[in-house]
């Protein structure tokens, strides 16, 4: 049995209380949500803390998927499983179900949260790529109040986010735009493994032309920020295999993978290309089939 170093345990029952505890207990205190990233690191003694502040009681307050007219709001304590099973999310953003099916395993998905995933900011983490693809923004609250940051500002680098000490991520907001759809694809060595590489794509169309498109990648470098050149290359174009190939090539160019146990840098670069093409194609197919994505206001 792997045992963590000694630590003290606190439990917060409101967001304010959590913020208060963080401030009072100082920099050696850390929030624990689902615990599926933090606790393994503690057991391996990669992280040694004085205090763990359990925020699972905040699930009532921060566990939700709320669909508004132009935005979907997801509470930070919403669990992987709830994202996977949410019919609203599935209908508006099929990328979520695509991704959630291949994140970890049911045991992890029962506990792990979207907030924990984003705050962990692991470069191989899938929901950051999903949120980047969907141009999400993050709501961060501290004793001084609330601020909203874009994904690009939120995700500062590996294991580093815009959440400062004494702050908590409370909500993820995703804009809803008409006539779009999305998809996610991941290559893993085995079910439940982290991605060798994954890619998400979101496409919006008007008639036969792409009005906007976004691609997000995971596990191919320190950052999973969107790739603006792809969006530029796709806007105003009619979807075609050649177009997707161009996008794939851009994805491969824009990433910076390293060779490790999961695969060589060359292979990951190839996957960035391949999976970008696949997800773009699938997103467009979904729009054309009218079976998924938001059709309100569409033709």
């Amino acid at each position, binding site marked *: 049995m792997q*045992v963590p170093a000694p630590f003290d345990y606190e439990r917060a029952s409101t967001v304010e209380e959590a913020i208060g505890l963080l401030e009072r207990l100082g920099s050696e205190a850390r929030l624990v949500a689902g615990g599926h990233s933090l606790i393994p690191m503690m057991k391996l003694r990669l992280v040694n803390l004085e205090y763990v502040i359990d925020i699972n009681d905040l699930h009532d307050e921060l566990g939700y998927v709320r669909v508004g007219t132009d935005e979907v709001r997801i509470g930070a304590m919403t669990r992987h499983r709830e994202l996977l099973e949410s019919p609203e999310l599935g209908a508006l953003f099929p990328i979520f179900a695509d991704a959630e099916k291949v994140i970890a395993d049911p045991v992890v998905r029962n506990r792990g949260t979207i907030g924990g995933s984003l705050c962990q900011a692991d470069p191989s983490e899938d929901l950051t790529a999903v949120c980047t693809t969907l141009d999400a923004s993050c709501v961060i609250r501290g004793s001084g109040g609330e601020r909203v940051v874009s994904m690009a500002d939120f995700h500062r680098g590996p294991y580093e986010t815009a959440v400062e000490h004494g702050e908590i991520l409370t909500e993820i907001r995703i804009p809803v735009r008409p006539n779009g759809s999305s998809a996610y694809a991941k290559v893993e060595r085995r079910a439940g493994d982290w991605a060798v590489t994954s890619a998400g794509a979101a496409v919006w169309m008007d008639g036969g032309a792409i009005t906007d498109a976004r691609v997000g990648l995971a596990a191919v470098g320190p950052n999973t920020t969107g790739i603006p050149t792809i969006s530029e290359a796709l806007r105003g174009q009619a979807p075609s295999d050649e177009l997707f190939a161009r996008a794939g090539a851009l994805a491969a160019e824009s990433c910076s993978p390293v060779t490790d146990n999961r695969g060589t840098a060359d292979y990951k670069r190839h*996957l960035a290309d391949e999976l970008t093409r696949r997800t773009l194609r699938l997103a467009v197919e979904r729009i054309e089939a009218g079976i998924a994505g938001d059709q309100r206001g569409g033709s």
Partner: protein
Amino acid sequence: MTATDRPPVPEDLEHVDNDQHPVGHGRMLRKEDPRFIRGMGHYVDDIQLPGMLHLAILRSPVAHARIVSVDTTAAQAHPKVKAVITGADLAEKGLAWMPTLSNDVQAVLATDKVRFQGQEVAFVVAEDRYAARDALELIDVDYDILPPVVDVRRALAPDAPVIRDDLEGKADNHCFDWETGDRAATDAVFEKADVVVTEDIVYPRVHPAPMETCGCVADYERVSGKLTLWTTSQAPHAHRTVYALVSGLPEHKIRVISPDIGGGFGNKVPIYPGYVCAIVASLVIGKPVKWMEDRTENLVSTGFARDYVMRGEIAATRDGKILAVRTHVLADHGAFNGTAAPIKYPAGFFGVFTGSYDLEAAYCSMTAVYTNKAPGGVAYACSFRITEAVYLIERLVDCLAYDLQVDPVDLRRRNLIRPEQFPYTTRTGWVYDSGEYERALDLALDLAGYDDLRREQEEKRARGELMGIGVAFFTEAVGAGPRKDMDILGLGMNDGSELRIHPTGKAVLRVSCMSQGQGHETTFAQIVAEELGIPPADIEVVNGDTDQTPFGLGTYGSRSTPVSGAAAALVSRKVRDKAQIIASGMLEVSVADLEWTKGAFAVKGDPTRSVTIQDIAMRAHGAGDLPDGLEGALEAQICYNPSNLTYPFGAYVCVVDVDPGTAEVKVRRFVAVDDCGTRINPMIIEGQVHGGLADGVGMALMEMISFDEDGNCIAGSLMDYLIPTALEVPHWETGHTVTPSPHHPIGAKGIGESATVGSPPAVVNAVVDALKPFGIRHADMPLTPSRVWDAMQGRPTPPI
């Protein structure tokens, strides 16, 4: 021949209903499962003793370094710590080094140098496991880092740092040389052969990774002088003898108990430093001490398997008659040679690398070396290296088929040993006992629909889809072994067995082998049931306690049924012989006038006059006279010495699909036809096959213990060392033929490792077959998507 016109198989008990418990062989639910299913298994970590202390081991963070100093002051000062012991402390007691099962020595705690990452350096004993672990952080070790030997191919380079400078006069990293077969004859055949195919084939280092890690509770009682050790051991008796020889404690004062074991696969054959540390701690402190390693410790420090870098050559005529096989192997044995194999077989049974084929000549030479990696070299369901041997020959045959442009099945069929050639002596001296190879191959092809699969493949290839069909044929050699040839550290590989029938006709069978999930409590009860007609439910099987069971060498190398199973059958027959004499007294006829029908003796020609085994048991213990010269009670004891190994075999067909864009491999189908001779409990056999096939898929596609260039093990968790899940394996399609062993009392051959031996080449052959359009003849395991993609780019790189 097709499946339908094949002659009926003897002893085929597939029809026996699962719920009607057979009195003897047949399909039957496992007696041990109710306790496992209800979470009532009892493992080493479940042992709680009053006053028990906990031990944790400090391990080396680096692969190779001189120990400058070890400062334990702060750890000693921890309020819950009872003792901190270093290598220097053990050296004072002469216990810093221990023998391995291969006549090498291994450091219990490092004194001079650390030789692999994860090596044991010091231990702490504390009141609880948390404090023990915390105190490890307080030990300060000063290391003088040395360059490590990581690449096995560089181990013998003149400038390579010498790892084993503890061995007198050691000036290089050479471990041993070994050869088998006839070099000159083989060279001569290669000279004249039309076709020679050479391939470099790596079998990477893998790990058994049992669900339960290794550990023990050592309890030394000062007053009685008795040491009781609850431990994760596949070989309790052998362990006891080794402890007695090393520690000097008298053997009758050592009791080794293996309770339920959560998987072994060979990982629990060796004696690890942790066990010795716990024993020392209990001797010194006089209290029970528990040591349970964690997952990382298990993966980075305990017995690994394989790690062979092989150059294989196969010679044949142009029309596909295989003439000879030649190979040179570079074997990585890690920092200490911890191989657990019969002592005269330093390469295990790798000598069966001639496979299932009738050859003119064969030769193997091997060089084993030390590297800065964890010790071991055997383990993991390999029947002493037959996994490597079968992988080599089955890959070579496929490479030959590729070069000759013939169907790999046709090539195999042409060269398989024919039924009339058995017993067959191979060119390396192994005597295969029995086999009908083509019958098994036909059945497998039939179940798979081989011709249809090839047609489907052709259509798919035309569309650019990548589908592969892999075939492998294997012969196992299990049941070590005849004492004239086989011993482990001087202990002959024979198994005792004791059978006692209670007055009411219930029985207890005591065996020396040790179940780790194989279902011995059921299988062995069924063996006795078959011989005596006592229902399996009435037979208790006791294993794993040296105070309660006769001596024997334990369970590994699929030896339980071939050796202990034979012992169980023979001891039952001994009891039956005595029962017959008692019955003759009861029925007042001569012994010769009695006839045995399962469970009862009857007077020949008058079946109404009979006594059951239960009647006889009561009479054996009851009042009244027994026939002259007969003692009371109904029990017997034997020790079985097998005259030969047994040779199970099988034919496997694997079908894979490879995604042309991502290079991901999906195992779509797997057909396994096994012949393990007489089938005692077909359900248990299938379970063993299913598990072994999953193991094989894991090794072929994802498992590997890898190291970085500094010798850091980068497979120290189950997120890094991947084992397959239900999603990676297909529905298993199993079939069987039955070719009994001629020398085993019930004709059984053992099944535990057949599937682990046979499945990796089937999977790899299938993947390589799928990649045929890319001009690929070979690619090494593990065939992860990245490695398959590399192969598709025309650069299949070896994993090490």
